[in-house]
């Protein structure tokens, strides 16, 4: 099977484009996704292929257009809706937590909401407190949603295709700082099932569970400590809800050490869920050290790059955490 190199942004575009070719019910809507190509350039050129009837620029009315996406999904379409920055989910939060994920249940299973909501998540861009958050933990607290965060072009494409074919509302959180990163992607069609984690590096001394941009930081840290003889296993969750706990448990039983790393602020972050799941599982008795969470400091994301870098986890902090846990 041939492979080609492409960016994370292009992998996303390819995934949507392929699904749009395959299924007339798939369409995109969001702010400035047409000629402007989206704030991060993801949908560049799509309007040329699919036209403004299927690549739809909306008014700046997130509640209305996410609501519109949901309604159209109820009526049998498969919207892929873009919220420019994940922080803006807050202005249409009711649609995200009270409408899309609850309808099927409240209505006794008679409707389904096959919608993908894509949005750009994460900091490190100097965009300050209202354009840099990682809000996935809030979404993972909502039964009825699925939550996906891909870390590579390969994963992004395969997971997004599955998300579009999924019959449930899927929150697809893209990582701003990964859009321009490159990776190999099969030329042939493929999908990656939702709910399955991926071991991005094998090791026997310590397990790191992470996702999104932090996967790369963790891999770099694992590489760094490997020179000190520490073999770190890096598990990329890929789908956060539902979470692939068996993979984590298996790894922890082997390595007896667990570190959870994410970019979201620590308190109330998904690290708590992951750590607690393991602490209450059979793997608990295998642990040789307390579970460690490494995450952003509990402050709004500051503008100044020195401060911002200071609050975010990075490979140096992660490497140190590995050493600490094994000490």
């Amino acid at each position, binding site marked *: 099977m041939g492979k080609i190199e492409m960016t994370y942004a292009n992998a996303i575009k390819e995934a949507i484009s392929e699904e749009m070719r395959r299924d007339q019910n798939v369409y995109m809507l969001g702010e400035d996704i047409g000629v402007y190509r989206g704030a991060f350039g993801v949908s560049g050129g799509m309007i040329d292929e699919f036209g403004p009837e299927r690549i739809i620029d909306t008014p700046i009315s997130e509640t*209305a257009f996410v*609501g519109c996406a949901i*309604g159209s999904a109820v009526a049998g379409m498969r919207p892929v809706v873009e919220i420019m920055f994940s922080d803006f989910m807050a202005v249409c939060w009711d649609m995200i937590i009270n409408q899309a994920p609850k309808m099927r*249940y409240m209505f*006794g299973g*008679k409707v389904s909401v096959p919608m993908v909501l894509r949005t750009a998540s994460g900091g490190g861009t100097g965009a300050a407190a209202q354009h840099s958050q990682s809000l996935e933990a809030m979404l993972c607290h909502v039964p009825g949603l699925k939550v996906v965060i891909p870390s590579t072009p390969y994963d992004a494409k395969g997971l997004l295709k599955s998300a579009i074919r999924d019959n449930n509302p899927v929150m697809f959180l893209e990582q701003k700082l990964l859009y321009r990163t490159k990776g190999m992607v099969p030329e042939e069609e493929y999908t990656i099932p939702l709910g399955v984690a991926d071991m991005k590096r094998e090791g026997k001394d310590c397990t790191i569970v992470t996702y999104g941009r932090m996967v790369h930081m963790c891999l770099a840290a694992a590489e760094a400590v490997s020179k000190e003889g520490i073999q770190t296993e890096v598990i990329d969750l890929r789908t956060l809800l539902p979470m692939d706990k068996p993979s984590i448990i298996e790894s922890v039983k082997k390595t007896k050490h667990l570190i959870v790393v994410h970019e979201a602020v620590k308190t109330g972050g998904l690290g708590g869920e992951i750590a607690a799941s393991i602490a209450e599982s059979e793997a608990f008795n295998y642990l040789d050290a307390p579970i460690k969470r490494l995450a952003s400091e509990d402050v709004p994301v500051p503008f100044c790059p020195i401060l911002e870098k200071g609050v975010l986890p990075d490979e140096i902090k992660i490497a140190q955490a590995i050493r600490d846990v094994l000490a």
Partner: protein
Amino acid sequence: MATKKSAIDKNIAIELLRKMLTSRKFEEKVQYYFSLGMIHGTTHLSIGEEGTAAGTCGALEPQDQIYATHRGHSQAVCKGIDVYKMMAEIFARANGVCKGKGGSMHIADKDRGVLGANGILGPSLALACGVAFAHKKRKEDIVTVAFFGDGASNEGVFHESLNLASVWNLPVLFICTNNTYGMSTHITKVMKDTDIANRAKPYMIPAKTIDGNDVWEVYNTIKEARKYVAEGNGPMMIVENTYRISGHSKSDGNLYRTKEEIASWKEKCPIKRWKEKLIENGVCTQEEIDAVEKETTDLIEGAVKFALDSPYPKLEDVYNDVYAD
């Protein structure tokens, strides 16, 4: 838009009466069993507002779709939901339209064009845009109706949805059931201009305010409005002025309104008025009206019996319907 009222067709007349009486009797039973503690949770009755539900839904085509409000029993009933299954739902039974998972505030049956009541005020307006978007795209002769209250029209999503429907020319009919109260809060406290139809103007959406307690006016207005919307002219808004005789929900001391006010509106009861009009105009006989009374009474009694005979859901069902396959 000047609505032309045609002479009253007898079949339609009876059907409108049947819808109103079914709604009324349905809700009276709900009220009764609620007061006995046999219905759980909360419930928002629309007693007194049946003219809006019957006139509106009566003028729609079977394939049309509605989003009901939290006060949506009569809207669902008039759209043609199975009242047996709806009653079973309110009694939290496994045979309910929502398998007992939704209850009074979440009555829905997509197969009958009832896309759902909502416990949150406002979102239905946007959801309706989406349904209409899909039907428009598929060039189907389907109009989507979003019911909402006067109070709910103060939510931001009202503005966003009307604007979206306007610029995208969506086949949505926005129906405001204006009963002049949001819970206890009178419309004059929360709007300077209380003619809600004016709120459609900035979007260039044609709008009209009518007497919602005159079921014939409602029916005729909506017939025309449906035609306008279905013909691809874009959305329309109709404000149906009415009054909620019943309290806001299970707990309402009616401290915010006078007995006289309620009494005066009982005089304007849409069912009473319609019966009188049918007799006056010689459309039906008293016997024919009595027959509808009896028929609807029997229907609702049947519904209650069905509900009471229906089993409760099983605990293991609690995990079903969270996710679709």
